């Protein structure tokens, strides 16, 4: 037992484990992570692909190798921290608290990340204006409006989802604007502005008066030509009007790009209406590990600062 204690107390063990984790992490960044098994067989030799898959190196940071190294490091750090505290208590040392606080912070950080790994949940919901989604804990989110604001050069400036939040059908948050870097906290959940997409829709009418709805990516054949609806954009002639963009293909080769507005003919159809709608992607996250992680980061920051201040004081002396 004493031998084990001495082994795990060793600074050399700490340095060795840290360097092994470093080397393995470097390798993990050089091998693409989280790909399908076929990817590794396709891009590496059979032996290497087998090695990567069997050791789960393709998901290195969830693999037994990584978790074992972290476990050894945790035990090593824990024993070191306990040993230092015992010595401090025996010799009644009051100084040099910095490293102890730092080490305790790192231990709590590892525990926090384990809690996150086991308990973190996330889900992305796509909502159009007026849509409502039910969340756990009898909460619901209703999207009042979604704005996509661009800079003059067309680059995104902001995405703002304005929502109402109800609990048990009672309004608890009115018109909160969720933006990137400004999530909303509801109970134990946080709601983030994650993504968006635009749904383009055309209504076409044939010669018999039948109406058909198509969305971006869909198309139809006219004689031996394939017409694919691609996008909606501002009309060059009248910027207050939208126009639909079509690709005209023959034998799978692009012949031309067509721009059509409402009432224009396209193939055997007439365009009845052109519309697009934005859908906001809101990510709902529950992470029970975040609070211990934040607490540990504060301890680490405090421990490092204290160590630094004490160290510089000794250097000056």
């Amino acid at each position, binding site marked *: 037992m004493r031998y084990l204690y001495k082994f795990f107390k060793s*600074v*050399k063990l*700490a*340095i060795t484990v*840290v*360097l092994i*984790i*470093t080397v393995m*992490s*470097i390798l*993990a*960044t*050089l091998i693409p*992570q989280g790909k399908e098994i076929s990817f590794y067989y396709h891009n590496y030799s059979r032996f290497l692909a087998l090695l990567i898959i069997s050791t789960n190196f393709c998901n290195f*940071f969830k693999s037994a190798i990584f978790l074992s190294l972290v476990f050894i490091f945790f035990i090593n750090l824990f024993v070191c921290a306990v040993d230092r505290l015992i010595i401090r208590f025996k010799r009644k040392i009051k100084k040099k608290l910095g490293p102890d606080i730092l080490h305790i912070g790192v231990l709590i950080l590892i525990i926090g*990340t384990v809690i*996150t790994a086991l308990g*973190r949940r*996330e889900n992305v919901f796509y909502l159009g204006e007026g849509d409502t989604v039910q969340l756990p804990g009898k909460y619901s989110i209703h999207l009042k409006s979604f704005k996509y604001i661009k*800079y003059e*050069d067309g*680059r*995104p*400036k*902001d*995405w703002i989802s304005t929502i109402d939040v109800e609990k048990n059908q009672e309004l608890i948050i009115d018109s909160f604007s969720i*933006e*990137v*870097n*400004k*999530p909303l906290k509801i109970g134990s959940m*946080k709601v*983030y*502005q*994650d993504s968006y997409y635009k749904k383009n829709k055309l209504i076409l009418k044939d010669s018999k008066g039948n109406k058909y709805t198509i969305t971006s990516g869909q198309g139809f054949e006219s004689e031996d030509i394939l017409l694919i609806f691609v996008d909606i954009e501002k009309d060059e002639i009248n910027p207050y009007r939208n126009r639909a963009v079509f690709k005209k293909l023959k034998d799978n080769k692009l012949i031309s790009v067509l721009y059509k507005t409402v009432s224009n003919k396209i193939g055997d159809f007439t365009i009845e209406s052109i519309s697009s709608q934005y859908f906001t992607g809101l*990510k709902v*996250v529950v*992470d029970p590990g*975040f609070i211990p*992680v*934040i607490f540990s*980061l504060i301890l*680490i*920051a405090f421990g*490092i*600062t204290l*160590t*630094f201040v004490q*160290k*510089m004081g000794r*250097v000056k002396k």
Partner: protein
Amino acid sequence: MISTIAFVLLCISCIIQIVFLLRERKVKDFFSHYLLLAAAILLFINIIDRSIRIKFLAITNTFESLIFFSAVITLVLFIYRLKIRKNIIPFIIFGGTIIAIILLAIASSPIAPKEVLPPVPALQSYWLILHVTFSFIGEAFFVVSFIAAIYYLATKDGEKKKNIDRIIYTSIVIGYPIFTAGALIFGAIWAEAAWGNYWSWDPKETWAFITWLIYTAYLHTRFVRKLRGKISAILAIIGFAAMIFTFFGVNYLLPGLHSYL
């Protein structure tokens, strides 16, 4: 234009430093470090000017990051030159000046677009400002430790080695907490606010973690007598290499969430 003038000043400072380093009679170089200070001020003015134009701190792309990093390195070198009177300092200052010149040269290359553009939504965060500034300030001290480590390995003089080792150690002791705060702590808080996940093993995050691990290992080698000296100097060099790969290698070889810089 401002950064070009700063680049010229750094080159002139570098030439003056070479002249004084090569002189047989060791006369003190009383001038070149003031050129470093002037270059640093100009680079900071460049950042301030761009920041006013975009109404946000201008450290959101590769060009601005390189300008800021060069400015901080140059300022740190100036402070070292003023504070430390030992005869080993001129070589370290010279090495750091070369690195600052290289960074500015890269900033002027096509891989660093120079347009003054306001930030996209993910970068509009005060945590980003803390994350990037603290990281680069910490790394500026790692530049000093890197040059000193090379000098350590190249020197045979025992007394000089002792002094250089001291500089390696103190620069890492200063840089490490700042880098930890910037790269890991503020970075994690920003990631959680922006994407709902404080750590996702993104290549940039992983390499920042690798850099941090190497310097952590360095600091712990100070407790083991056999590992002090040569081994710890080599670790300081490897740490610097990891730091450079984190900034450049990850951006251009391993894309991920951090594809802004």
